[in-house]
């Protein structure tokens, strides 16, 4: 097994005819993901390399049975695209788009949590279950099939840690980017719970960074609810307060959200935190012995 994306994924891509949308759609398809449809308003009847394009997500779902959507539309249209996907009954929406306003996401999040659909992102690299399916922008050759789950707020850091782990001969069940924005649809806890329920995930690596308190909340969840071991990593020990470190969500406000605070909180709850990606891989290898 694996989580979120696999051989049962039927993907519709919102923004499929855009430059980036098309590029990544075809890469996902080439990896083996079952891409069943694309959506661009006004372009129904066209196709992208054989993938049929529809005017609306609802049309795409009715015609193809799509159950997962990937959003590649610019920030000013992305909020609408998320609502459209949810309204069409899509189980899992993956929003790659970076730059969606925070007020929009407060409303999207509140709406989302009244139902039982899932949203990954926004501002996330997507998810990959190596050997089965990838949805998003991750460089697929970094990953190999295996039994370690990875959850991360950052894209490139995910690749770095996956490679370090891969170099030790350890593969991944699913790698999930939850996104670098202050409000994202799925938290560490949401994804940790899925990994806990997955019989084919033996260990989870949680890659956090400065800002917010999601890592601390995840620590409490791990201590109370997880039998699968979790190894942590936190980026941003050198980050000064009040400065946004790239991601909209990576900012230390006052005394909360620091890397040291997160590391201390996690370790107090029994989650070992590596000080750099290489050490994380070493801890993982050690735990799996």
């Amino acid at each position, binding site marked *: 097994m694996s989580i979120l994306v696999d051989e049962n994924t039927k993907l519709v891509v919102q923004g499929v005819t855009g430059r980036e949308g098309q590029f990544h759609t075809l890469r996902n398809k080439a990896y083996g993901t079952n891409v069943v449809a694309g959506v661009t308003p006004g372009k129904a009847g066209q196709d992208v390399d054989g993938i049929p394009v529809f005017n609306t997500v609802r049309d795409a779902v009715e015609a193809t049975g799509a159950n997962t959507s990937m959003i590649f539309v610019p920030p000013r249209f992305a909020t609408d695209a998320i609502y459209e996907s949810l309204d069409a009954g899509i189980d899992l929406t993956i929003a790659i788009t970076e730059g*969606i306003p925070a007020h929009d996401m*407060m409303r999207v999040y509140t709406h989302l949590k009244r139902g039982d659909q899932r949203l990954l992102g926004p501002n996330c*690299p997507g998810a990959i279950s190596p050997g089965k399916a990838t949805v998003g922008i991750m460089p697929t050759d970094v990953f190999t099939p295996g039994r370690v789950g990875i959850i991360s707020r950052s894209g*490139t*850091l995910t690749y770095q840690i996956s490679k370090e782990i891969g170099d030790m001969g350890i593969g991944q069940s699913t790698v999930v980017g939850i996104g670098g924005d202050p409000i994202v649809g799925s938290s560490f806890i949401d994804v940790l719970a899925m990994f806990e329920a997955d019989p084919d995930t033996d260990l989870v690596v949680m890659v956090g960074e400065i800002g917010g308190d999601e890592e601390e909340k995840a620590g409490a969840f791990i201590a109370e609810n997880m039998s699968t071991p979790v190894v942590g990593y936190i*980026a941003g*020990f050198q*980050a000064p307060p009040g400065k946004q470190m790239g991601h909209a969500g990576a900012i230390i406000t006052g005394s909360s959200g620091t890397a040291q605070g997160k590391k201390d909180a996690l370790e107090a709850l029994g989650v070992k935190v590596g000080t750099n990606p290489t050490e994380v891989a070493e801890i993982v290898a050690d735990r799996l012995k």
Partner: protein
Amino acid sequence: MDLFEYQGKQLFARHGLAVPSGEIADTPEQAKAAAEAIGGTVVVKAQVQVGGRGKAGGIKLAATPDEAYAEAQNILGMDIKGHTVKRVWIEAASDIKKEYYASVTFDRSAKKPLVMLSAMGGMDIEAVAEEHPEALARLHVDPLIGFQQHDARWLIYHADIDVPAQKGVLDALMKAYEAFIDLEATLIEINPLIWTADDRVVALDAKVSIDNNSLYRHPDLAELQESVTDDPQERMAHERGVTYVKLDGDVGIMGNGAGIVMSSLDVVALAGGTPANFLDAGGGSNAEAVATALEVLLSDPKVKSLMINIFGGITRCDEVAEGLLTALDTLGATLPIVVRLDGTAAEEGRAIIADRAPANVVVEPTMLSAAKRAVELAKEAA
């Protein structure tokens, strides 16, 4: 984006929130003219985005226009916690009966707006929250329903607001929430919100932050953005759209993606060095982005060595290598540059550097070894 007090007050006034009448002044002459126009005793307030202005001597009363001139002369150019005062706000002095605290914030943990109210205003609200938590009334708002009058009443009763001021505070809270939504703010803080001798409720300070991601819908707010940094690299980076934060050290750092750059800073520190900056050249870094980033880094005279850490996903390492060579040709840098390339087209990238890069550019195989090498080279150069 953080706004100055005067900008916040002007926005408050537009949203019907009472503020003292005032004017902005860049010179003592303008301050004097403003005081004349306002009439009576005025307050001269330093416009800097940092707390503790009053204690630092950045807020003064002036009974006459001449006094306003003199106070403005003192305050303009003053350094308050590293911020130089470039403007002062001149406003009518208020007759204060009591100081309250009111705010609407974007509560990232709850993922909802949070409205807070206290009858203990005018002081550090974090201290109030810690020492008298019962004095700070807090209420989360359902963003799909909005802030209702009964919400405001709940806050007013729980914060123990004085009866004659209740109606004015209710109105101020409703307007503050309206402003929070209209401006797509992440923070609206009024400390103090005052109850005046003539029973009005007035915002005596204004702290407003706007969500940068929403600025495309608010061109008028985007125009308010003043460059608050005096740092030449931060200014240059801002102008060229590079994500850059200046730090104190001497190892310049560049990478592709916020996470890997933060991690690179940490690894440099673990190796015994001190990072000079955070610089994210972006997820899809191409040759041009690399050249721009390098130019920003090399303009910082404190930088003794560079660590370039690229994990190619969408980014192609061969393009990064080409960009690096082009930039070095133009900029002619001689300081040691340690490059680590991994992921998409990494071998091609490494080959380009091995074949054609000048001797000051070295390639390291891993992030850790690159950090160690960059730290050693910075120490040798120091």
